[in-house]
């Protein structure tokens, strides 16, 4: 996330689970980039696999979306 923040010239606040994604300063494009690169690294995209995946609100939600992908 820090790498993308630097590329997108976003100043990232300290990350913790309760930080809302809105407050990260990431726009939808930055998230799209993050999701795509995570998919390349991890081979999964939890937001596409699950049709009813609620879009995460906080950094913690976002991380859990990846943790909860059925193997």
């Amino acid at each position, binding site marked *: 996330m820090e790498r993308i923040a630097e590329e997108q010239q976003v100043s990232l606040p300290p990350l913790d689970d309760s930080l809302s994604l809105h407050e990260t300063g990431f726009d*939808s*494009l930055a998230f799209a980039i993050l*999701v*795509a690169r995570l998919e390349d690294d991890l081979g999964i995209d939890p937001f*596409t696999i699950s049709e009813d995946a609620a879009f995460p609100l906080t950094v913690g939600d976002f991380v859990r979306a990846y943790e909860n992908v059925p193997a």
Partner: protein
Amino acid sequence: MSPREIFALRDYLSPELKGRTISDPTATVSLTDALSQSCLGGRVRELSGRSVLLSVSTQLIAALAMIELDGVVKRMLLCPPDLNPDHIQALIESAEIDAVVTDEPPRWTHSGIYLIAGAHLPVERLLTKLKTERATEWLMLTSGTSGVPKIVRHTLEGLCGAIVAERPGRGAPPAWATFYDIRRYGGLQIFLRAILGGGSMVLSAPGEPLADYVARLSAQSVTHISGTPSHWRRLLMSGAAAGFAPRYVRLSGEIADQAVLDGLKQAFPSSSVGHAYASTEAGVGFAVNDGFEGFPAHLIGPNRDGVEMKVVDGSLRIRSKRAATAYIGNGAAALTDTDGFVDTGDMVELRGDRYYFVGRRGGIINIGGLKVHPEEIEAIINRHPDVRMSRAKSRKSPITGAIVVADVVLTESGAGRTREVRDEILADCRSNLASHKVPAVIRFVEALDVTPAGKLVRSDA
């Protein structure tokens, strides 16, 4: 009534020009003696006035058959080697084909076509020379469509319009070669240049490795050569260009960006490097020889050598004596608008006193509702010194619908430093492109697919 004098290919083949040849790895055939030899076993007279499908397995036989058939048959439909066999029947019906010239006659026994003429090498001696009887219609197929290709009708006069206008320079006639197939518009232009220019031509054989072809080009002192930017990038990547020193290097068929022009100038310091704009429908529009991408804005507007260009809604429109005369077939669309302009579908942008090609109208990718031409992104990526070629495309994103991703082929020098190169490319993209056009993901790949017509494969276009 005296009809205008009709010229056919044979009328450019004078027995007085000695030493002219056309060759592939298997055979070398004299062009000097072209008028007194036949690859059709002398059966060409039976084909007089017929609508002929030319379906042969090598460019060399195709070339010799074109020389024999032009001016004798009513029309000839040139089948490129990658033609999908499933489309042949539809093409035969649309073009009202009633004869086939082939080097594999058994394949056509059950085709329902009455007249099958076998073409073969070596050529045989003709006892009486053929006469030009008519202006044969040249039918070519469009490339790049996934369905049945469209049939485009040209005249030899239109096909040769740009060649006549360029007025070849003095000195020894050029020896031509091309990475295109001569049964496609770009390749046919080069074959015609060889015939009209009084020189020789070196053709590739099906499946011939690039390095072998280039070695033959060097050995036979080829001076003039053309291909698409993708062809040229592939050559630069192969390392096979070393030792080859053509006088003239020509690009067409895709956008020639500054990176590929500079790369060729570097690889061939003693060559002049030019790029030409042409399409199967609109014919040759113009050639640019100043070494820069794009073209001078003053080419738009006035009629030069029978070519008139305008830009409407961002796309280049051409009215030209070199354009095709029609699409052929039942229910075929009109080739031009009511004023006679062909809409090329190639999008251009005016910056300063030059127009730049930005992409195909049909190739636009949609990124979160914003339109992006992949070519404009590739042009930025390609100018990185460690990049050989690239392809931008869209990838589905659960967040924005789609994002831009880029596949990049590096030069040898870039291969060891992918992380730095990625950062440099992204920095360059960010300072020159709107944020939605900056690739979200850059993937380094060994190679990119190129179509049989020499163009980058754009599966999402």
